[in-house]
């Protein structure tokens, strides 16, 4: 059951007042513009045991994503497609407010929203990941671990997932005498597009991009919009406030423009297509 609760991070009254004052003057407490994201750093191949991995820092939020490739049965109804599963976990290392245990609803939402962006954009060409049609397919797991949480885990996790997939080396598997054999060779992941999520929150009447944890503690509503080269592919409104139709249309436009910038940056950092 989903229960309304107070923010786990307590922002002092005075601090919130400072934030509201700054926002009314078009500024943010860390000096950023409303449409300015925090610095994005991407490090690849941080885990050699994985088929692909990435460490992403978005400001002080830090996420590691690892790709593991296995084989298995296809999903029901998708017999001639490989399987791709993105999951996410907020580790107890991430903040004093996280306890070990089964994922809470926020973590379930995080994993499902990131998964939706990758799935609906058809980033990975799953038709190319079939070994025996209807029987054996590649199963690709992307597991994300949030190491440090300082707001906007949606985008940080999404960028980590995309970067890990772009840089992953897919083992070339073959069928020999009804058995799956690893040839020892690798190939690039069959990627068709690069989905980029952009998250904005509304605080009062202002809509600001890439919220920090402190800003999230003061937010009224949140929206995450994922675009691919072709256009929009996923969206999730969250939190207990509402948006006007105009605010959403404007956020969608911003998500497209900012998405282009981040996509170019991630392609460059992962040397994708080079």
């Amino acid at each position, binding site marked *: *059951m*989903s*229960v*309304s*609760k*107070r923010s786990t991070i307590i922002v002092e009254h005075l601090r919130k007042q400072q934030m509201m004052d700054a926002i009314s003057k078009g500024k943010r407490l860390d000096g950023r513009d409303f449409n300015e994201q925090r610095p994005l750093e991407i490090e690849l191949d941080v885990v050699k045991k994985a088929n692909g991995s990435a460490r992403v820092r978005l400001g002080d939020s830090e996420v590691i994503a690892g790709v593991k490739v296995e084989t298995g049965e296809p999903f029901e109804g998708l017999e001639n497609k490989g399987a791709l599963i993105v999951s996410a976990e907020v580790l107890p290392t991430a903040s004093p407010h996280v306890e070990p245990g089964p994922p809470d*609803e*926020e973590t*379930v*939402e995080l*994993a*499902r929203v990131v998964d*939706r962006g990758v*799935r*609906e*954009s*058809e980033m990975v060409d799953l038709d190319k990941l079939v070994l025996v049609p209807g029987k054996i397919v590649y199963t690709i797991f992307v597991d994300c671990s949030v190491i440090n949480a300082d707001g906007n885990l949606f985008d940080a996790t999404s960028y980590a997932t995309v970067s890990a997939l772009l840089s992953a080396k897919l083992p070339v598997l073959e069928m020999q005498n009804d058995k799956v054999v690893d040839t020892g060779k690798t190939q690039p992941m069959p990627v068709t597009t690069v989905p980029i999520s952009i998250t904005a929150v509304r605080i009062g009447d202002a809509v600001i991009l890439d919220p920090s944890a402190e800003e999230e503690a003061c937010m009224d509503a949140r*929206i995450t919009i994922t675009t*691919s080269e*072709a*256009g*929009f*592919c*996923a*969206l*999730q*409104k*969250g*939190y*207990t*406030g*509402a*948006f*006007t*139709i105009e605010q*959403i*249309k404007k956020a*969608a436009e911003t998500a*497209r423009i900012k998405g282009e910038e981040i996509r170019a940056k991630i392609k460059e950092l992962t040397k994708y297509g080079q």
Partner: protein
Amino acid sequence: MTQTRNLIDENGKRTDGRTINEMRPVKIIVGNIKNADGSAYIEFGKNKIVAAVYGPREVHPKHLALPDRCVLRCRYHMSPFSTDTRKNPAPSRREVEISKVMREALEPALMLEDYPRAAIDVFVEVLQSDGGSRCAGITAASVALADAGINMRDIVAACAAGKVDDKIVLDINDTEDKEGGADMPVAYMPRLDQITLMQLDGKLAPEQFNECLDKAVEGCKMVYEIQRQALMQKYFGNETEVKEEQ
């Protein structure tokens, strides 16, 4: 998901015979559960959903209570027999997410500050599912909350729009959800002109995005009228008709 077959025929009719701007038939009955403080039953196409509201009442366990407002607790659940293949009754990750977005869709409409230290429980049970069950569930829950006499700023109406055969259509059904190009569920408060739930999965070209959103909002406004009529029917019965005639 890329579409593999056409879902709109040459006459512009969809798989269930509707046009692109047509909503499935909607029927709402208010107060169907006698024990609940407020309740509603909705048929939205083939969706059959009951919503019950209990509260405001004491919070158990007490540590969940908030000093300045009421906690809203929401459960969206699908009965094992509601789907083609039996659904495991344990809450799935999908249901966890929908319970959350449903709560967040209803909260902006409720004056929770009027009931500090209390809880309002909303239970939504899908008896038969037909695509768009979260929208139908929110629509029913909102009516049930009004029936329970909870102070509200507005009624939340929900409806989806989506893309089928590269056309933007109103109110996606199950087949269109599974095989179509995009699904955009939206919950909207017509009086306040605000969106309280919005999701999208599937591809939309930039110019289709606004069209799809506008269409979903239009659908919400139609649903709102049906919600109002259902509430009027329970509380004023045929009196309203008489008044309107005069």
